């Protein structure tokens, strides 16, 4: 039996399921194929995100991101958009993922050329659906020209075929062909479809926004300001945000902010995520080391309006504004990542 992941989605016809008439087989098979496609196509873990750092020769910078994969991926792809500060052949950028892994060298062309993609394929050693940190090292060859890294993206490669197990949730397509008996069992027949379709966990978690700075006190964003929240902004522009439409009647969805920060022992910092007049603040007590702040409460944003051509409610964008300040103590506060995740099941 096989559980292939199609290169495009299928479309079971709900019109074929009519009151008083048994659902027809051509509904069942496309439904199983759609379920396999849904679970097998990869997610974008880090949307192409601004970095804009210049890395000097012989220097390594590490970027960290907060993500929640769906759990079926076995390969990630990192795409770095970069340009050297000198002519072609003058430099190379070595990449490793996760941080500390073996660096792989990639050539980078010079300043008069357009930016170019540098790609790293990261095979995974385990499937995971847990919220977690993923990271990447960027190192410029010693003696080479410095390299401008403009943006970074990371996504999961699609699967070719799923397994019939609780992790992959693949459905054997042969069990849904015409004249096959109906079984109420896991990963086969109509029972497999019912199991997949009833589980909103099969919805892919989404990273809506991610912005990282290198995880050191020289390159990370820093502040000693105690100015009121709302004035010291983390991004130049507000961040566009639309959550998924879930149940009938939903008009908003919850978004979970995440931060990677550092403050001295005895110093506290506050970070605000605002959507219009609604604000969610989080306080971090310094430990002297970088740490993820995951305790922030969720904030509601518009969910997609499926009857609008582009999903926006009232043709308006919901936008998040992030700001921060040192709220107590002395010393400098640092921030190396701000993210917004759609984690709702």
């Amino acid at each position: 039996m096989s559980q292939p992941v199609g290169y495009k989605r299928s479309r079971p016809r709900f019109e074929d399921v009519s009151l008083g008439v048994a659902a027809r087989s051509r509904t069942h098979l496309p439904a199983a194929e759609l379920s396999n496609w849904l679970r097998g196509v990869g997610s974008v873990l880090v949307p192409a995100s601004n970095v804009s750092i210049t890395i000097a020769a012989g220097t390594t910078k590490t970027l960290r991101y907060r993500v929640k994969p769906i759990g079926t991926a076995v390969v990630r792809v990192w795409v770095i958009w970069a340009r050297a500060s000198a002519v072609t052949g003058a430099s190379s950028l070595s990449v490793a993922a996760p941080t500390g892994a073996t660096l792989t060298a990639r050539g980078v062309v010079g300043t008069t050329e357009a930016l170019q993609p540098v790609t790293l394929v990261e095979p995974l050693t385990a499937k995971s659906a847990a919220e977690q940190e993923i990271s990447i090292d960027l190192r410029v060859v010693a003696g080479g020209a410095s390299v401008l890294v403009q943006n970074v993206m990371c996504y999961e490669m699609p699967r070719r075929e799923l397994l019939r197990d609780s992790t992959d949730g693949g459905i054997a397509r042969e069990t849904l062909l015409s004249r096959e008996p109906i079984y109420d069992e896991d990963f086969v027949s109509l029972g497999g479809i019912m199991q997949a379709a009833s589980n909103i966990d099969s919805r892919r978690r989404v990273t809506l926004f991610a912005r990282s700075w290198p995880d050191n006190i020289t390159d990370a964003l820093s502040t000693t300001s105690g100015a009121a929240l709302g004035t010291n902004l983390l991004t130049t522009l507000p961040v566009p945000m639309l959550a998924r439409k879930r149940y009938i009647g939903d008009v908003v969805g919850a978004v979970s902010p995440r931060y990677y920060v550092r403050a001295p022992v005895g110093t506290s910092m506050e970070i605000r995520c605002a959507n219009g007049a609604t604000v969610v603040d989080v306080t971090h007590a310094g430990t002297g080391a970088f740490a993820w702040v995951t305790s922030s409460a969720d904030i509601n944003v518009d969910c997609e309006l499926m009857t609008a051509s582009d999903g926006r409610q009232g043709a308006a964008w919901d936008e998040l504004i992030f700001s921060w300040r040192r709220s107590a103590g002395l010393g400098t506060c640092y921030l190396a990542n701000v993210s917004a995740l759609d984690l709702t099941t």
Partner: protein
Amino acid sequence: MATSEHLAFVAGNETSLVNLAGDTATISDAVNNLLHLSDSAGRVIVCTADGAVSYPKKSSANTGAWFPVFSSGVFYPLLRDDGSAYPIRVRIGGRAGSATGSIFRIGVCPVGTAAFSMSGGTILPNVVQTATITSTTPAWLTTLLSTLVTLTAGQVGAALTEVSTYDAVSSATPVGVLVCPCTIEVWTRDLVPADDTPVVAGVYAAEYVGI
């Protein structure tokens, strides 16, 4: 367009057949749920809100040509049952090089086609363009002709290619998957040769299937 009957997930559907062999209402809701989960499986491809990116300054005078400013890097768009790509909701943030004005374009382009799509005289369905922007203060631009770009089945079909990956953790046996490698591109054009270059400060692109 959206494919589910209720345009949302129906809660409370049975998780198994419970000896009904698939009664009509149960199967109908199950199909609706799978369709809605797939309709809403679109991903955010690009989301930057604090960039200050312009094309490399040319030593010669600006000719008013289109120049690439931003690229997402290669990704594989989700494909619909008719072979077209999930539409992509887009937005550009930026500022003009001077008050005389600059124009911005954003598009989704199969690899190798960006120059054709982004700099042509005709605006294709996979590209949208702003009106002339004269503000020199960075802001999300509100004059896009549309907020959606799309790739037709023909464009996708011409770009489909098989790439290698693995299908199990720690596997040493590569397998092939069929994908349509694309990039999100932002190109700009300045109206005055002596101006500073226009700046892109934000880019947003997210897959979306609506009605």
